[in-house]
């Protein structure tokens, strides 16, 4: 893939279901254009999509920042939502506070955060009740980078 770092941001609007997933779709295309390995692209796209849907479903608005270096993909999703009172509980497969109309769309089954964790090499969630949630995950592009703290990436 390209040696250059690439970064950008997508703006997300709560309840905009017509465009829900568009940011992750664009991110996927960017990764494809950078010739990132297919299985890595799939993991990044799935984790980004779940994070994006969480903003669309639960928050008023949010932003998805992406930073792609030859070592890793780092995604930071910040939202203006109500926050998560119990992150441990929210990480439990099947736990959901989604209303019925969200479930009828095929989401809100309590798999979002567990799916992100499953696909990411590293996941951090910082949430303040009434103040929103910041979710950050990293997917390493090669095994050598995994587990190593990448200062270049951190400083993006």
């Amino acid at each position, binding site marked *: 893939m390209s040696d250059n770092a690439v970064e950008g941001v997508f703006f997300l609007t709560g309840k905009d*279901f017509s465009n829900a997933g568009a940011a992750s779709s664009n991110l996927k295309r960017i990764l494809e254009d950078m010739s990132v390995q297919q299985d890595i692209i799939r993991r990044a796209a799935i984790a980004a999509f779940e994070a994006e849907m969480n903003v669309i479903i639960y928050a008023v608005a949010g932003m998805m920042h992406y930073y792609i270096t030859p070592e890793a993909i780092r995604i930071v999703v910040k939202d203006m939502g109500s926050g998560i009172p119990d992150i441990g509980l929210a990480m439990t497969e099947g736990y959901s506070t989604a209303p019925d109309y969200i479930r009828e769309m095929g*989401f809100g089954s309590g798999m979002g955060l567990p799916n992100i964790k499953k696909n990411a090499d590293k996941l951090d969630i910082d949430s303040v009740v009434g103040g929103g949630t910041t979710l950050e995950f990293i997917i390493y592009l090669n095994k050598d980078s995994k587990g190593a703290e990448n200062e270049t990436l951190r400083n993006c």
Partner: protein
Amino acid sequence: MTLDEIKNTLNAAVISKREDMNLNIARAYCADLMSDVLAFSITNSLLITHLTNTQVIRTAEIADVKAIVFVQSKRPDIETIALADTKKIPLLVTYLSMYETCGKLYEKGLRS
């Protein structure tokens, strides 16, 4: 199985524009929960579902689903079909139930 064989097995109609009927499908996954598709489906598979909204197409794109079959004559709206055309994801509709759809494809050798 090719997409054409799937279409014939299910007496399905193709409702999207960009279909390659020789497209080879090796696996299938059925779900109405899109997070399950994201969590458990295998890349390059066929998705069998009742859901017809645009999120199904987005999910299919993200999860590298090759084609979608809507069961029980559920037809997506124009917006959803247009998105599938843009993403080059073939859409089929069958009058069969999800149970019958899966059974017939399984009988023909298509596995999950």
